[in-house]
């Protein structure tokens, strides 16, 4: 650098200029402050987030896998449960159906018996009623008929009754059909 120092009339480039030194320091200090405030935090935040995202992604994947496995287990168990349930319901339905059928049968039989019984009773009652009526009518008819045939009035109460009684007893001892036919004619 001797030639620089030796040059006559040339300015010495090493000479410090206060204005330039101060400007350099001020500009650079402002630059450092701006970088510290606006640049470094942004980059560091991004790096930290990226690290967290990579680590978090792994953890998340593991978690998702575990969750999927849990869900699968649950579904499997639910499916098994549902199968059991379905089988049980089918069994129940079958049993219930059988019960219902037998109950129905029972009920129908009872009803039929009841109807038959009622019919019997009614028939018997009607028959009894008819018999009573017949007995009265047949008595009257027979008396009238006998009176006409014999030609004498059976006015005597006691005799008349006796006659009727005897007649009916005869009728009863015989079959019902000759009596009724005798009555109808």
């Amino acid at each position, binding site marked *: 650098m001797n030639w620089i120092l030796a040059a006559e009339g040339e300015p010495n480039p090493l000479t410090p200029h206060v204005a330039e030194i101060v400007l350099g320091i001020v500009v650079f200090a402002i630059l450092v402050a701006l970088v510290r405030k606006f640049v470094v935090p942004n980059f560091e935040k991004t*790096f930290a987030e*990226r*690290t967290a995202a*990579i680590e978090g992604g792994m953890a998340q994947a593991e978690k998702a896998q575990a969750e999927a496995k849990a869900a699968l287990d649950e579904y499997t168990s639910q499916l098994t449960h549902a199968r059991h349930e379905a089988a049980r319901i089918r069994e129940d339905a079958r049993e219930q159906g059988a019960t219902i059928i037998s109950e129905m049968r029972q009920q129908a039989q009872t009803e039929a018996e009841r109807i038959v019984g009622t019919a019997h009773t009614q028939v018997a009652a009607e028959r009894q009623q008819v018999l009573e009526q017949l007995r009265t009518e047949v008595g009257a008819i027979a008396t009238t008929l006998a009176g006409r045939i014999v030609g004498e009035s059976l006015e005597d109460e006691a005799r008349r009754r006796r006659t009727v009684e005897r007649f009916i007893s005869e009728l009863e001892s015989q079959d019902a059909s000759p009596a009724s036919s005798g009555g109808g004619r």
Partner: protein
Amino acid sequence: MSQSGPFTEPPASRSQDPWVAFGRLVAGVGIYGLCGWLLDRWLGTSFLLPVGIVAGAALGLYLVFVSVRER
């Protein structure tokens, strides 16, 4: 200058300034040369300046060797 990503942590290498040898030589020559020159002016002699320069250079070199040996 290894381009490792921001996620790996390399061991901190406490490497030293490679110019430290130059600095020590300059400092040695400078300070002991100055001492020799001042002594020359004070005592009216003229041989202490080169002695100071050589001694300073020697001390600087010695210091460089010591620091290299230490590591």
